[in-house]
């Protein structure tokens, strides 16, 4: 397969993997931990002394370890939320598209209605009414993103259903279940994979946004969005507290976007040629 032959996929995928790996192992290798404060070293700049690679924050906590922790949380939130949207969206869209007719019309009107809700306010409300916790963030973000996925999958299923190879399968006596799993689903994978890699950065953004507003993960836990929020307050004296987590957030977002683009090229090429 030409997945690794595509330079965009290779480079952006490599960077994401590398960041994820460092985020996973980094904290174990560092002598510092994310909790302990050191009032002798408030807002000290990055240095190799005492392995303070990213410096410390206003409470003297080690920013390297905290950033790695933030990346973990951000990636986990993004991936779990995308997975939630993937499962709901694909199942909903494929059913609507394959069954068609009135069922399809009714199901898609539900999606249209949900689209009309201002979701960010909705999510903020949820956060305020219920206690803040990580699970709620997963659910909230997933619930926003599955709508797009459902529409895309439904459209694709509708057009696949009319293709001649599906008619050929029907004539051969292939059961509807086998048609869905053997003939329609494999042809959906391309577009779904591409779309998931494009939802991940969206989920990351929503999570960062919520954390930036102070509605995301709770201290002393942290995420990239929360770190950026804290960094903004120290921007003038200690720019690294903003630039490092902000820069990493931008890098991760960019890599996922490029990864999506690259994957789309790879899958498109297979369909065109």
């Amino acid at each position, binding site marked *: 397969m030409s997945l690794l032959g595509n330079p965009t996929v290779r480079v952006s995928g490599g960077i994401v993997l590398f960041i994820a790996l460092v985020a996973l192992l980094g904290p174990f290798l560092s002598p510092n931990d994310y909790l302990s404060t050191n009032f002798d070293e408030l807002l000290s700049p990055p240095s190799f002394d005492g392995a303070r690679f990213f410096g410390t924050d206003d409470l003297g906590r080690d920013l390297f370890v905290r950033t790695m922790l933030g990346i973990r949380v951000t990636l986990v939130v993004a991936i779990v939320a995308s997975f939630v949207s993937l499962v709901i969206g694909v199942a909903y869209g494929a059913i609507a598209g394959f069954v068609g007719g009135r069922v399809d019309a009714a199901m898609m009107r539900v999606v249209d209605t949900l689209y009309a809700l201002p979701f960010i306010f909705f999510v903020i409300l949820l956060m305020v009414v219920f206690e803040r916790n990580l699970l709620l963030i997963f659910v909230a973000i997933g619930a926003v993103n599955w709508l797009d996925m459902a529409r895309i999958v439904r459209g694709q299923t509708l057009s696949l259903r009319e293709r001649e*190879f599906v008619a*050929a399968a029907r004539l*051969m*006596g*292939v059961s509807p279940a086998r048609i869905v799993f053997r003939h329609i689903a*494999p042809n959906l994978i391309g577009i779904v994979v591409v779309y998931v890699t494009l939802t991940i950065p969206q989920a990351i953004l929503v999570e960062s946004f919520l954390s930036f507003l102070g509605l995301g993960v709770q201290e002393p836990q942290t995420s990239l969005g929360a770190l950026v929020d804290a960094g903004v307050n120290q921007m003038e004296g200690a720019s690294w507290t903003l630039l490092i987590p902000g820069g990493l957030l931008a890098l991760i977002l960019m890599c996922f976007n490029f990864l999506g683009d690259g994957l789309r090229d790879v899958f498109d090429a297979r369909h065109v040629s």
Partner: protein
Amino acid sequence: MSLLELEKLSIRYGNTTVVDNLGFTVGEGESVGLVGESGSGKSQTALAILGLSPRGAQVSGNIRFAGSDLAELSQRELDKLRARRIGIAFQDPSQALNPYLRVGRQLREILVRHGIAKGKDADRQVMAMLERVGLPDTERQFMAYPHQLSGGMRQRVMLASALIAQPDLLIADEPTTALDVTVQAQILDLLEEIRDNTALLLITHDLGIVAGHCERMLVLERGRLVDAGATTALFASPGHAHTRALLAAAPRIDTSDIPDAVHGKSILGVESATVSYEERGSRRLHAVSDVDLSLHVGETLAIVGESGSGKSSLVSAILGLVPMESGCVVYAGSELNGPVERRGKRQARELQLIFQDPIGALNPQMRVRSLVGEPLVVHETQLSSRQRLGRVTEALEQVGLDAGYLERFPHELSGGQAQRVAIARALILRPNVLVCDEAVAALDGSVRQQVLSLLRQVQDETGLAIIFISHDLAVVRSISHRVLVMYMGRFVEVAENDALFRHPRHPYTRALIEAVPVPDPLVPPRKAPLQGEVPSLLKPPPGCVFHPRCPLASDVCRQSCPGARDIDGTRVACHHAD
């Protein structure tokens, strides 16, 4: 001096050479046919002459037009030359015409931009041109958008735009390939009529068209010119093996080499089948109205008719892919009802279909081994995977593909190979009835011959009954035992092959046969037998639906729909048949 001169023209894309060292000339007023199979570089050559080669093409060699080397002209001079002295007509007018501009404005722009005429004068010239290409009601067509015209009318507009500047050379790239045969005949007539002194470079895969309309012909094979000369001479004694092969593969409607009649017992019967689709605005479109059909063991029944005649709808309904509004299908003594999913395993095993687009009928994500093996997975569950692989290999061998193809994906196959895979899949359960819906229409001549002889061989060995849908009457003549003719979803005529082609009783059948170009320069091309085009199925004419185009139409035809009658073994629906 020749008008157009090509010398050592080569076109490359990266390492692939699509046109190799090509040289030929077109004299003033001459008509030259450029023939070859798909991928032989015909269209690439045309685009290079026009300076329109796609990005990435490396073009070398000399192209001289009326003495000047095209490579030395500036972009402005080239534009002017293209507009005023070279006209071009493409295969698909619906893509070559701008959908957002009224027809009249598109033509007018050519005149105005290149300073040939302006103002009222330009309008007048456009009107005159539209009238010359045979558009009825020119005032209205002037204001029409391309989508409001039928395919034939659009191609007429295309020709009008190619010829309005009175060019010295017209390049026509497969100008009639997308059209029905009766309309094709009209366009070819028109081309002859309005060409005057314009030289013609006609690109086509159809040797019948070359034989009737070109003085000289050039034969391309994989980018190389293999044969060139006067059409009559080349047809009489082709110089190159490839030309011989092309000629041998061109089916002739006037052949006498047809299959012998067979006398099997009836296996499939259809009575008064009617199929209709709901259109927007709750109107119903009757694609098939009250058609009977019977098919015998070991027989090939061809269904012919122009597009919109309901051929495909009829077989889709027979197979249960679309619902039948009324009528019944009887297969081997039992009735088949409802959608295919409810018809049980028997139909799924014994009735098979082959589609026109071979690649589209194969799941792009499956390898050949699982594509061909799928019917076995569904119906012969007792087979071990090794036995299944054995059967698959056997089925592929039968269609002339070796085991090397097992692991390929559909996009790694050529059109001919993909169609063979589709045939292998259809035949692996040893069906009794095979429906071929334009199964060879997308294939090149030589590949088409191979697929047809494969079908014939399977039929001889197994007594397979075949329904063969085709718009190509020459192919039908060479393969079928009986022929059913349809028009606008109605039954027209059914007869034995020889009877139908020698003594067509319905005027529509006669017109269809006459409209087919014969690949023989000694047979003079006939005038288009039918004028006009197929009316909309949403508004069928009253009485006999064929009467507006029928040369024999009389009052009775306008008032009452003819029933089917038997005359000497031919069943025909016409008031005037005898």
